[in-house]
């Protein structure tokens, strides 16, 4: 097997702490009594709400039409009565209209025999149409998949991104263990969209998980796909870092494992994106597990599904520990781009015995420069932002920052560099 490949510079090696939920098979979460579906579960503008309070909706029915760039359709994840349309604040801080559906009536999609369609019959246009209509978005970054595929031009490589380099998160890992066939079929669908040879499709997994993913590995080889082991470094799982590690100049399309599964279900079974696998983990939850839950389920219900809290969590994080958002309560609903719900205990905010402390002055140690995968100088950017000098920020290349968090992760003065650098864009 070829030596593990990786991106050229920077990056950090956080403790992966995936052992908490790595071996837990994907479990179906119980259906919520109330589903709160935000109109904005993607990168772009909120979708236009098509329903009003009092209407009845069927499971999988379209309740929000995508409008404008970066928007995607939103479907009802449970059948029932629209109780109200209200404004909610998402964990990311964005305000968006949302629909509250009270569970009522029988399920039409789940538990009923579905007719599988042979995806090879569809022509390219129909495939894209079907993906877009079913509201499929990238489960990593929330970008509408149909738009991404249309804008991909003529890629020479398709990278199946199973790296998942953020600690705690094991959803993609479990998908590769249990649903490798469906994921790889999704990859075949996308490969057919761009007439790619099987050899041009790469399954990207980290080197240390090659044994546990032996079955997926075998199935990929059977289909003629290549398997590329990558170093377990953060942010290897990000699109650009994968291209830097593997593409070597070729034009590569990167798709997350969860997204490919959604594509498969949308194209073959016609089911809209109303469910996703989410990792509920951390020392403050009694039984960390990977739940296949309905979108709109409250985080509180997800945690109760995992045996409830085991002591007061120090911090609740939605998404990964390095890029996720801290939330004050568990009222937020599950949305398309949430990969994890982490209830972190006292000791978990530190990696390997480093102290937690308030923000101190920058001592110019240069660790953030070594950690930055883009070769930027976070401390110089930080100082110029504090002094308010946009001209210097352009000269130093602030626009190349992808807010991966490596600089803030290694900063001994615990300066929230990501917040400062993100703020710097508005100068």
């Amino acid at each position, binding site marked *: 097997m070829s030596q593990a490949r990786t991106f050229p510079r920077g990056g950090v090696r956080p403790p992966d702490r995936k052992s908490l939920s790595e071996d837990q098979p994907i479990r179906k979460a119980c259906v919520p009594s109330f589903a709160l579906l935000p109109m904005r579960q993607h990168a772009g503008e909120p979708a236009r709400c098509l329903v009003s309070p009092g209407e009845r909706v069927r499971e999988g029915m379209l309740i929000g039409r995508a409008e404008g760039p970066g928007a995607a359709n939103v479907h009802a994840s449970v059948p029932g009565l629209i109780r109200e349309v209200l404004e909610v604040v998402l964990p990311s801080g964005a305000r968006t209209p949302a629909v509250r559906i009270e569970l009522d009536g029988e399920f039409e999609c789940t538990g009923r025999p579905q007719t599988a369609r042979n995806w090879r019959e569809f022509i390219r246009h129909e495939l894209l149409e079907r993906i877009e209509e079913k509201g499929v978005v990238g489960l990593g970054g929330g970008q509408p998949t149909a738009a991404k595929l249309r804008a991909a031009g003529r890629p020479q490589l398709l990278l199946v991104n199973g790296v998942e380099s953020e600690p705690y998160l094991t959803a993609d890992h479990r998908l590769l263990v249990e649903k490798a066939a469906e994921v790889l079929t999704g990859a075949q669908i996308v490969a057919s969209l761009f007439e790619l040879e099987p050899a041009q499709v790469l399954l990207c997994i980290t080197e240390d998980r090659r044994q546990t993913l032996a079955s997926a590995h075998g199935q990929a080889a059977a289909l003629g796909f290549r398997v590329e082991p990558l170093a377990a470094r953060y942010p290897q799982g990000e699109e650009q870092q994968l291209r830097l590690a593997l593409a070597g100049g070729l034009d590569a399309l990167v798709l997350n494992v969860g997204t490919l599964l959604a594509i498969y279900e949308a194209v073959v079974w016609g089911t809209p994106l109303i469910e996703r696998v989410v990792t509920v983990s951390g020392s403050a939850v009694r039984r960390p597990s990977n739940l296949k839950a309905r979108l709109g389920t409250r985080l509180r219900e997800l945690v109760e599904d995992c045996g409830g809290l085991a002591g007061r969590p120090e911090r609740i994080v939605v998404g990964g520990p390095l890029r996720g958002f801290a939330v004050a309560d568990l009222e937020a609903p599950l949305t398309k781009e949430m990969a994890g719900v982490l209830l972190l205990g006292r000791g978990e905010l530190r990696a390997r015995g480093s102290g937690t402390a308030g923000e101190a002055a920058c001592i110019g140690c240069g660790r953030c420069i070594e950690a930055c995968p883009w070769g930027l100088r976070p401390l*110089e950017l930080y*100082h*110029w932002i*504090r*002094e308010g*000098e946009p001209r210097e920020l352009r000269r130093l290349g602030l626009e190349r920052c992808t807010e991966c968090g490596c600089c803030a992760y290694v900063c001994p003065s615990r300066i929230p560099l990501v917040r400062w650098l993100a703020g710097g864009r508005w100068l």
Partner: protein
Amino acid sequence: MSYAGIILTWVFANNLVLNQLLGLCPFLGVSRSPAAALRFALASALLMPPFALAAWALERLVLVPLGVPFLQLLVLVLLLVLPLLVLRLRARRPAPAPGIGWYLPQALSSCAVLGVGLLATSAGYGAWSSLVAGAAAAGGYLLAVVVWSALRERLDRHGVPRPLRGLPIALVTAGLMAMAFLAFDELLFKNLLG
């Protein structure tokens, strides 16, 4: 003193800015952009060696034989002023882009250039020594300006407490720079060169 001794002394021990405290106005010109400050320093530096040689020539060949050493200042200032006069009279249209040429008149009037001439003559250097001393002084001046422009970028970036911004922090930084130069005095170079 050997030429090497002169060079080391005039670049480090008697650094024009940080030891003799000459040419401070342009050096501390905090309002200037770094590029303008560097060009101005280069203009001054280019003038120093010829001016030092001219000062020596005037002293040895004109003033002393004529027995009017006290006219040295007037003659040197006239020497400074002539090119200034020519430039000003000939400059019909407004000054071109601020290249080195544009800075020449202002450089002429800075006490760094006149200072070098006076220092060279008062130190009793010969013709070649004056030229070398002028060049070394120019080198020391440029060294100080280049190091100072990098330091100032760091000060601007880090943000200095409110009342110290601008001139005060420039002076304090120059003070600490001068302190760093203190250890490299003439005694050290005399021992070094044996």
